[in-house]
């Protein structure tokens, strides 16, 4: 294992994500927002082909980590159909209405000092924390 502590992993991984967003903006003038990346890719138009390259790169990055780097593999969990369907639907619905997710509003929006993105980040962090509180402390 190269790195032991989870916060150092977090910081290094975060820096990679920041460099990724920097490369995309500096060379292509685009925002590295993943919800928009998926929605744009699904338009299946020629001008959106680059988005498929980006999504393909995300898979490649995951494969390099899992199979080539001497780092612990990502844990796998039991299939959780209901959480995936409800969670996925709400994430798709919400990010489309709110124009972004953790990457678009978080990494890029905050980097641009956008007040709109700051409000979005505070809103989804708060609602995410309240949701987990309700699930772990009240429902179970």
């Amino acid at each position, binding site marked *: 294992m190269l790195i032991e502590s*989870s916060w150092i992993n*977090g*910081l*290094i*991984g*975060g820096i*990679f*994500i*920041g*460099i*990724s967003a*920097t*490369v*995309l*903006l*500096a*060379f*292509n*003038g685009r*925002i590295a927002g*993943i919800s928009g990346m*998926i*929605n744009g890719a699904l338009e299946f138009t020629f001008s959106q*082909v680059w988005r498929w*390259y*980006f*999504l*393909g*790169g995300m898979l490649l990055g*995951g494969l390099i*980590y*899992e199979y080539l780097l001497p780092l612990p593999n990502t*844990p*796998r*969990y039991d299939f959780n159909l209901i*959480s995936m369907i*409800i*969670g*996925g*639907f*709400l*994430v*798709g619905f*919400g*990010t489309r*209405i*709110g124009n972004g997710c*953790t*990457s678009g509003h978080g990494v890029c929006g*905050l980097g641009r000092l956008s007040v*709109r993105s700051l409000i979005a980040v505070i*809103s989804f*962090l*708060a*609602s*995410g*924390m309240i*949701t*987990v*509180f309700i699930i772990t402390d009240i429902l179970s």
Partner: protein
Amino acid sequence: MNNKQNITALISGLLFGLGLSISQMIDRERVIGFLNVTGKWDATLMFVLGGAVGVTIITFRFILPLKHPIFDSKFYLPTRQDIDGKLILGAVIFGIGWGISGFCPGPAITSLIQLSFNPIIFILAFIGGSFASQLLTKSKLKE
């Protein structure tokens, strides 16, 4: 859209996927651990977001004043600056789905490489939710 831009997108995506994997943000339990502030709190996500924004806040200051990006004639940036109900409602709904699943769009895409059902079903449901919101907004425009 040319080849240089596609290769740049591929490299940028690769760095993004590596970053999500190194930081273990594709581990749903870690993300839920961060959102679980009243339980055994896992601060990792804070360092990830801090590390990423720490980079963009510096580099974007130098990039955005440029006349155009290196491989294109203009920047494609969001222009809206107003805070409206849709922004907050959308972010709140996203947060609820995030808390339920432990996935946001980026980690869900990269963890597709695990070939497990969780991210596959999540992404399919994500696409369903995204299309549903489009239908809803379009039908509202017609009224």
